[in-house]
Structures are given as C-alpha cells and as structure tokens.
C-alpha cells in the first residue's frame, strides 16, 4: 500500500519587507522558506501508520510542486522516514494558483495510485485551504477536510476520521478508501529527524518530473490551468485607528475629543 503526502515549501516574512517591482508578489530577498507546518503532521500521520501494526508494507511518498529550493523540504521528509520524494516542476508552473497545483498533484496521484492521500488543511503562506480538496475533486475520490483523528487499518477498505467543525464540535465520519484527507494541526506529535536520517537523506535521490511527463494537457498547466491570478499584492494603507497615549485621564479626554470631532461638535 502507498500513502501519498503532498507538501509545500512555504514562505514567511519579517516585519519589514518590500514588494516585487511588478507589484504582484513579495521581493524574494525578504522570504524565509520552511516546510508548511501542517505538512509535518501529515507526514507524521503517514509514518505512524507505516510504523504501526500491519504497516510494514506501506510506502510513504512525499511530493511537492516547486522549484529547486523545495528539495530542502523534501529532504526533511526523507530524513524523518519517507520512502520516496517527488518534485514536479517546470517554468510554466511559476505563477500557477492552488487549483493548477492540484491538477499537477492529481496527475501525479493517478500515476502513483496511492491508497490514501494526505495533505495539510492549508498552507501557512497563501492560506487558500484548497489544494487537498481540489485534488480530491479532480480525482473523484472520497474526501474529508480538517481531520483531527484518523483510525485506519493498513490495507482496509475504509477509514474512520474525526473532523473538526465549528464551535468545538466534531463529526465522526466513515470514509471509503482510496481517499483524500486534509489533516489538522495537533492530530499527532511530529518527530524531529535524527542526525543519521538527515545525513542519509542528503544522499538520497529526489525524483524530478515535469507536467508533460505526467501526461498533463497544455491547457491544464500553470496559468492556463489556474482559475485565479494575483493582480496586485500590497500592504493596505493605515486606517484611522490610533493608539491613545497618556494617563487614563488624558486618554479619556482625548477619546472625548475624538467623539466630539466625529459628531462635528468640536
């Protein structure tokens, strides 16, 4: 049995940053890269099944859509015990949205034919929360989002998942497999990679594929396969909020003055 874990190299920002000249993204000099936090949990859940009862035959395959730099995140997953790592990339994928990424991952899933597909609920940078569920739709597979607990016997025809809902409620759902699950933070305790694992992962191959090798038609690749396009990225101008400094009495006086100004009385 195979578990496909889709991961993403996410970007984080410092307090001050600059927007790229074309105004559609952040200047890459200001980006710090890391493995998406949710994906640590997805990988751990796959490893938990692999290392648990009946999991000896499970093959954990991690996959991502991203440039060379994403190899670093794939190697982190290999260091933690993943069996294979696949990166899909071509220049055409440079500006694709979450749906176009899902198309690539769905094409890869058709090729790999996993018994389960795990994705994070969302990525910490763009926060679409769409990739996993869009992939399920494209594959026509049963799916469950925001999974907080998973009960699955390797090789079984179904799994029972606990989904996190609004207001602190949960839903227990039985789902047929193969299935796509997006996993929530806290579903397990992710491990740290051992030094030996890290050293071994540095030597292991990462399979590099392009969309054509997955048999994707040209009109589904990159911007052609995207349903959205970033027109502009910007920091909104500061609103009218202001901090009122001073002693409580001074703050109260200033607040009263602002209210009067607002009413046109001052």
């Amino acid at each position: 049995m195979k578990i496909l874990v889709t991961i993403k190299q996410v970007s984080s920002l410092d307090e001050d940053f600059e927007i790229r000249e074309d105004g559609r993204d952040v200047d890459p000099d200001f980006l710090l890269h890391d493995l998406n936090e949710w994906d640590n949990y997805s990988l751990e859940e796959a490893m938990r099944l692999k290392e648990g009862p009946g999991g000896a035959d499970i093959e954990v395959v991690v996959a991502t859509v991203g440039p060379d730099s994403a190899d670093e995140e794939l190697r982190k997953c290999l260091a933690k015990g993943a069996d294979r790592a696949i990166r899909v990339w071509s220049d055409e994928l440079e500006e694709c949205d979450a749906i176009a990424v899902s198309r690539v991952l769905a094409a890869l899933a058709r090729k790999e034919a996993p018994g389960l597909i795990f994705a994070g609920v969302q990525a910490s940078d763009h926060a679409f929360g769409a990739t996993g569920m869009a992939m399920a739709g494209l594959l026509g597979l049963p799916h469950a989002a925001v999974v907080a607990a998973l009960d699955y016997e390797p090789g079984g025809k179904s799994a029972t998942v606990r989904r996190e809902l609004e207001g602190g409620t949960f839903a227990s759902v039985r789902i047929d497999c193969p299935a796509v699950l997006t996993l929530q933070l806290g579903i397990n305790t992710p491990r740290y990679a051992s030094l030996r694992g890290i050293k071994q992962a540095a030597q292991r191959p990462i399979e590099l594929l392009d969309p054509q090798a997955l048999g994707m038609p040209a009109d589904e690749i990159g911007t052609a396969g995207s349903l959205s396009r970033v027109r502009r990225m910007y920091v909104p101008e500061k609103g009218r909020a202001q901090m009122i400094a001073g002693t409580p009495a001074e703050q109260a006086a200033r607040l009263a003055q602002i209210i009067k100004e607002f009413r046109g009385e001052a």
Partner: protein
Amino acid sequence: MTRSPSSSSRSVASSQRHWLELLRRARGSDEPFSAAALYPDAGPQQRQLLEPRLFGARRDRLLLASAAFVAPAVLERLASVADDETLRVRLARNPSAPAEALGQVWRDGARARLAPLLARHPNTPREILAELGEATTDLDTLCALCENTGSSSDILATVEQRRIPVLQRLLAVNLATDGPTLMALWRATDEEAVRAQILLHQHCPDALLRALPASPLERRCIARHARTPPALLAELARDAEVAVRRATTANPATPVAAIVASCFDTDEAVRRTVAARRDLPITLAACLADDSDTWVRRVLARNPACPSYLLERSAADHDLEVRRSVARHPACPESLLDRLSRDAAPWVQAAVAYRDDLPPAVVRRLARSSDVDVLAGVGRNPETAASRLARLAVHECADVRRAVILNRQTPRAILRVLRQDPYPLHRALAVDHPNLADADRWRMRDDPDIQVRYRVYHHFARQLGPAADATGDAAMQHEQYPHAAQEKMETI
C-alpha cells in the same frame, strides 16, 4: 604540565589548521551565520575574506541585520556597507546593534523613519538621543526616548522641560530620571497616575515620601517604596484599601510589629504577602500555617523563615501544592524529603527530585519512577549516577533528555550521545556543556542546524581566532589547504 617546544609548535600548527578549515567552510557555506560567528575573532585580512560571504548578497545582509544573536562587530561593519533604507531600519531595530552602527545608520539614513527607532534603542549614542530630546517634535519619537533605558538623566530632564503632558508618566517611570526632574514633574502636574509613578520611583525625593496621599493609587505606591518612613508604613498597614495593605505588607521596610494584624486580614492576598516575608517571626508563621487559603499555606511552606516543625505539619497537608512547596523549602529536613519522595503525587516527588542536597538513596528511589516530571528532576540532579543518566539520555521524552544535558555533572560519554539528539535545541545546549570535549564539538561542525553550527563556530572562534597569526591570514588568502591536514582535523 609543561609542554616541550616541539609539542607546543605542533599545537599552534594544529590550531591554525582548524581555524583555516572553519574559515574555508564559512566562506563556502550556503548561509552567512557561520561566517558571522568567526568574524569578530578573525584578523584584518581574514575579515576581508569573510566579508563577501557576509555582505555580498542583499538577502544575507537583510538576514544579518535583523539577527539579534550576531556579534556587534558584524553589525558595525554591516552598517558601514548598508546601502538601503530597509537594511538601516532592521539595524536600528536590532537590540544587539552597537553604538557605532547606530551612529552610522543615523548619519546615512532617512531620519524621519529612523528617529523613533533610534530613540528607543538603548545603545544609541548619547549625542543622538540628546539631539532628539531637544529638537524633535514627533510625539512617537519623544515617547520612545522617555521609554529608553539608555536615556540619561540630563536628556530626560531636557524632555521634561518641554512640558508635554503625555510624556510625564513615561518620564516618571524611567529609572534614569533623577530627583530634581521628578520634583519638577510633581509640581507640574496633579495627575494621579503621574504622581503615583513618581512616588514609586527609586529617586523620588524624600520630601514627597513623608506625607500620606489622599489617592489610593498614590498610597499604594508610597507603601511600596523602600524609603518610606516606618511610621507612615505602619499607618498604611491599616489602610482601608486592600491593595494598599497588600503593598505595605510586601515592603521589607515595613516593621514586623506593623504587620501582626495583617496575619488576620480579611483579604487573603494580604495574608499571602505576609506569609512570604523573609523576616516573618515564628509566632506569626504558626498563625498562618493553618490558614484556610491554600496559597497562604503554599507561600509559607516555601518561605525560608518557616521553621522545621511547621514544615512537618505542612508536609501532611491535603493540598499537594502545599506539600510540593515543603519539598522546595531551602532548609527542608532530610527526613521530610525522604517522606515526600514517597508521596502519592508525582508532582510532589518531582519537587524533591530537583533538589541538589538529596541523599543518594532518595535519588535512586526517585529514578525508579515512570513520571516524566520526576525523571526530569532526576536527570538534572548532580547526585544521579552516570549509569542512570545514560538511560535517561535516551528517554523518549525530550524534557527528560534535556534535563540530562542541563546537569553540569553529566559525563562526556553521555554528552556524546546527546550531541546527536534529534532535537536541535538539545544539540545546541550540549555544545556549551563544560564536560563536552573540544574533539566532540569539532565533530559537530557539520551539524545540519544553523544555530548548532553557529555555537560550534563561535566556540572555536574564541579559542582559535586570537591564536591565528599572520601566517594564518596568508594561508587563508592563498587558499592553501593540504588535504591530508584537513583529514587529520577529525582527531583534534
């Protein structure tokens, strides 16, 4: 032991080889922090060779400018090559930026954006702060100046003379504000919040501490002041306001005679502060030992002034937190510790396990626990046997393994296991352990984690950098690295 001239020269040559390898690795690294760790201890020529790695790419310059752990020498040099405003802003925000770097940033940068940042930075040169204090009209900058722990009393006095009401409380809070400025503030305002801060200030003029203020907030502050006259404190101990009584009983200057009644105060918070007093007489301690409030009994059981016979009673308390406090009492008798180490609650046992004065038999008993809190205490205990530490060093709980690293008695053999711990923080802590040998640290120079490598490089830079002479500079410049020599470095 004296070394022969030949062994001494071999040692120097070995140091040079190691230093050169670190320099070579830092220059070829994919991150700038290894080079930053070496830079402060490198010679002038070696610094020049490191600078392209440190400052060559804008991305690296930005990373270094906001890294608070980077040495001031790196930030000073970075300020001199800073060529854009974002970089200067990051330097101005970096708490490690030295005065020279901040001065450079101020000379080169856009002052409107930098002024509030430099006004807040404790390392900003005095003349810049003085300039801002006299001339700026920006309220944010002035507020930052008043909140700056680096602002001197004369600068704060200059700001006070500008009579800006919104700054008065901030000036009264700043520890550097002197007595005359505080007095000027007092005269300039009848604002309760400002006056309260003045009364709390360590430089508050004595004249202000002699009268009983009408406002409860001001009374609370005067009750906390170390120089408030005892007679006034005695009066404040009977105040109608709970907060004032609590502040008075917490003040070590309050005479014991004045707090006797506080032992029976209707407010438990007042009784708690009495129970925490280091000068608590035994008779008062006895009154509080049976207090209905758990916190009073907890605080009393940890108070060094609490006598042994009361600890005996508290050790049988139904509340486990009180029993835990007994186990943390600095003079808890051995017999009580023995009894508490058998307590039904692991939380109480854990408090015993963290003590450095335990008999070996008690440590051995606690080491048989399966509770991670207890085992963490055992792991950190200097009395724990090496064989037990070796088992705890591979415990599945990270807290237990970390406790072994934090134990100053952990022997080298166990640290060699822990330097390969999966958790990077543990490896970083292991680097600084006094029992880890340099040969072990040297093998950590390839660690995949940046913070671990930084510590390793920093450790060797302090040792090897100053010893590297001009020969090292020249060798570095010409990239002379005999491969055979590099292989031998493994056996430092």
